[in-house]
């Protein structure tokens, strides 16, 4: 009964979305306030009904209702409760429901927090948001109903893919979707502004907090996904340039560009049509991700079960939403006049460089991701584009960005004094050179590119700190004044400083773990000793243990350094009998200096198994923890900036006072 109620709630939500996609926008055209305000009721109604449907599905998973097909194929009565809950969004249908639920949540929050928006812009934004809702709700109801029943019901379910039974991955999709779907609001704002034909500084100010919120979630989602890949897949890598990773990375890159270009639109009234285009493209890339993951277009380890019918439906949605918005853009954009002028050396120009590089990088990743498809279509050759391409094309492109990032915040608007900026940064440059030389002296030799990247990471770190010191006049006035100034700096300024430092920290982690990584793979028998970095690792044997829905072969590795006992690592190889899959649970000893990472895989052969011999893989990855520390800093910086008072209350006052001034002038 409850699943049917859930299904019914979805149908009701669809009809509300249909109403909301027409009435408010018609009202905005006629300037009819009642029609425009109907959007609030329907937006709240949608979130209530989709929320009910989501709760109904979760209920089916929690109570292990195997008469529901989705539960039967993705859950199991033996599974721990937390993964039963998480299995709600583990399948194609369930994750789509979560997607739509978040979409309606964002719609309702625009309605709730958008009381300071002009009525017409708000009505149009909510209508555009409802169009997206209609598209996805109908997609779900017509092709992927999560509440389909199965008869006769199986006695027990066939279990969720055990690789996904992990706390990191249980949280990964919701965060990622908050990011993807958060950009839908920005998209709706952009489409509404194009329909209205007006993009101004106030518009950019409304758009920024939503962009920021989406960007923070996406950053957290990608960081969490990469952490999961690191410790769960047992390869010790954290990024594989897999198509599905790339499709989440592209909206992040472009969203980062949008975050910066919106500043220019807000402060200087420039880059208007570019900001609108970025807003459209960022969400388009999020939609593209949804399409690629669910259509089987490209080969990936992460893709959902493939169904061409679904693929065609999503492609139709993409054609309408992306094609429609870009068509609207082509029609309206030329009429938008550019705002504030600026010199080639100025903060505007710095942010332009940021946007150009991030845009080009996104294009490169997009091209690399889709190249196999293009090539197969044209020549029917099959290739795969691997990390070699992406590393060779992407890294050199990003390094100039890091160089510019150090200087950018010191440039002033309109016209800046490059010589003066460099003058102020000379100590930062000197310090980064010294730090790199120290690393060069201490480390084993790596490639030149590694040292160049390292120099730039240090440069970014010191230049960012220097910028902060300049703001609070740390070395120019007495300490109490500096502290008072530090207290009075706006949160958004700290947000920028921490996020930029986070990028430097992430870079250090990436460089350390990819250049100075050491790896040992060996067939080991109890008593075998391996040495890696300055550790001595003794394999003590394997024992069989049991978990709730799996059994595991658990290896014990005694780790010593300089003859002293450090720790014992217990990597596991888990077998899930119901799902007939095995997973690797690596054992990691984390320190700030680096991770010692161990995983075991099954015996090389049956002969080897009798002898108790296993394939053991040990890695030492210096600084790898910095990647996640830096990701946390990025998110934290974003949150600080989001909590800045200016973003919460600033916008309406400014537009009102302007209005008053305009009237006074008449």
């Amino acid at each position, binding site marked *: 009964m409850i699943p049917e109620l859930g299904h019914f709630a979805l149908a009701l939500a669809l009809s509300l979305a249909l109403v909301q996609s027409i009435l408010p926008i018609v009202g905005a055209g006629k300037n009819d306030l009642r029609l425009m305000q109907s959007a609030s009721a329907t937006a709240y109604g949608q979130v209530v009904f989709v929320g009910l449907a989501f709760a109904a599905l979760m209920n089916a998973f929690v109570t292990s209702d195997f008469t529901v097909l989705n539960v039967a194929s993705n859950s199991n009565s033996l599974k721990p409760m937390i993964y039963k809950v998480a299995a709600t969004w583990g399948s194609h249908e369930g994750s789509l429901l979560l997607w739509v639920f978040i979409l309606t949540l964002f719609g309702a929050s625009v309605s709730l927090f958008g009381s300071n928006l002009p009525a017409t812009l708000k009505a149009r934004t909510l209508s555009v948001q409802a169009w997206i809702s209609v598209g996805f709700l109908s997609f779900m109801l017509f092709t992927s109903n999560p509440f389909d029943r199965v008869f006769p019901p199986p006695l027990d379910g066939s279990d969720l893919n055990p690789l996904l039974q992990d706390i990191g991955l249980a949280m990964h999709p919701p965060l990622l979707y908050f990011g993807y779907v958060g950009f839908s609001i920005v998209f709706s704002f952009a489409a509404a502004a194009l329909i209205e034909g007006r993009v101004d500084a106030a518009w950019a100010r409304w758009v920024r907090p939503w962009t920021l919120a989406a960007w923070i979630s996406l950053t957290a989602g990608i960081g969490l996904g990469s952490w999961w890949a690191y410790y769960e897949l047992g390869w010790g890598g954290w990024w594989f340039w897999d198509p599905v990773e790339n499709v989440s990375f592209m909206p992040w890159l472009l969203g980062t560009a949008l975050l910066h270009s919106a500043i220019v639109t807000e402060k200087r009234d420039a880059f208007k049509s570019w900001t609108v285009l970025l807003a459209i*493209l960022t969400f*388009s890339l999020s939609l593209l991700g949804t399409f690629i993951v669910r259509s089987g*277009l490209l*080969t990936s380890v992460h893709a959902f079960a493939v169904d061409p019918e679904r693929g065609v439906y999503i492609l139709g949605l993409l054609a309408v939403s992306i094609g429609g918005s870009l*068509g609207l853009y*082509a029609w309206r954009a*030329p009429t938008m006049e550019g705002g504030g002028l600026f010199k080639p050396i100025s903060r505007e120009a710095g942010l332009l460089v940021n946007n150009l590089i991030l845009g080009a990088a996104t294009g490169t990743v997009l091209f690399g991701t*889709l190249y196999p498809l293009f090539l197969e*279509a044209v020549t029917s050759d099959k290739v795969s584009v691997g990390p070699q391409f992406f590393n060779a094309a992407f890294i050199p492109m990003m390094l100039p960005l890091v160089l510019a990032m150090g200087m950018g915040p010191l440039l002033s608007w309109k016209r800046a004094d490059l010589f003066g900026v460099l003058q102020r940064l000379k100590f930062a440059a000197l310090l980064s050179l010294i730090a790199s030389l120290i690393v060069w002296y201490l480390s084993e030799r790596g490639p030149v590119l590694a040292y160049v990247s390292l120099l730039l990471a240090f440069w970014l770190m010191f230049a960012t700190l220097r910028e902060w010191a300049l703001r609070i006049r740390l070395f120019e006035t007495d300490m109490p004044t500096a502290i008072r100034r530090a207290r009075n700096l706006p949160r958004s300024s700290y947000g920028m400083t921490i996020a930029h430092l986070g990028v430097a920290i992430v870079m250090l982690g990436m460089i350390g773990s990819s250049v100075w990584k050491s790896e040992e793979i060996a067939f080991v028998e109890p008593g075998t000793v391996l040495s890696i970095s300055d550790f001595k690792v003794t394999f003590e044997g394997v024992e069989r243990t049991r978990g709730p829905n799996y059994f595991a072969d658990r290896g014990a590795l005694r780790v010593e350094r300089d003859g002293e006992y450090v720790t014992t690592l217990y990597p596991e190889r888990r077998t899930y009998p119901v799902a007939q899959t095995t997973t690797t649970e690596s054992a990691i000893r984390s320190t700030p200096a680096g991770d010692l990472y161990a995983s075991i895989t099954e015996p090389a052969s049956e*002969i080897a198994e009798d002898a108790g011999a296993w394939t053991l893989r040990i890695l030492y990855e210096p600084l790898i923890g910095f990647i996640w520390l830096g990701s946390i800093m990025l998110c934290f910086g974003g949150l600080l900036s989001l909590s800045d008072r200016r973003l919460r209350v600033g916008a309406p006052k400014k537009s009102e006072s302007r209005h008053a001034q305009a009237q006074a002038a008449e």
Partner: protein
Amino acid sequence: MKRILAFAPLVIALIFGGFFLWGLNPDRDPNEIPSALISQPAPNFDLPAVEGLESPGFSRSDFDDLDKTVIVNVFASWCVPCRAEHAVLTSFVEQDGARLFGINYKDKPEDAVEWLENLGNPYERIGADFNGRAGIEWGISGVPETFIVGEDGTVIYRFVGPVVGDAQYSKFHTALLAAGAIEGQN
């Protein structure tokens, strides 16, 4: 100029969309691993018989005077999916009248003998590829793998993984029919 530039994103998006539409063709399988051997003569190899087994050994020259398209299956006793696939291959031989050759990959002879005694031996010839040399020649990515070889000794089709389950069965069965390795039932 500005107007033309504003249309550029739309045009690019439409081109992408065209490729996507092509990519959704249901017959297209991006996971399919192409083999350099397809439409090429089968590689050279010469494998002795498995010790303790009556089936003769298997080499390239066995393809020289074929009267019919044949199946070549790479298997091993230590490979669990092979065990599942064995019944399917046997049914092709016994019910559909296919000719089946085997390459016993990196296996201990006594294990292979025991395995075939338990499950039955549908193979006409079995070559013992103890060091995996023939496996390299055939370019296999793992066991099991199954090839269809035409009368003239050219490789027609390659199937990676076990022929188990409805979807895999019908795919391989269709390929067998198309290649003429078996007759269609009525």
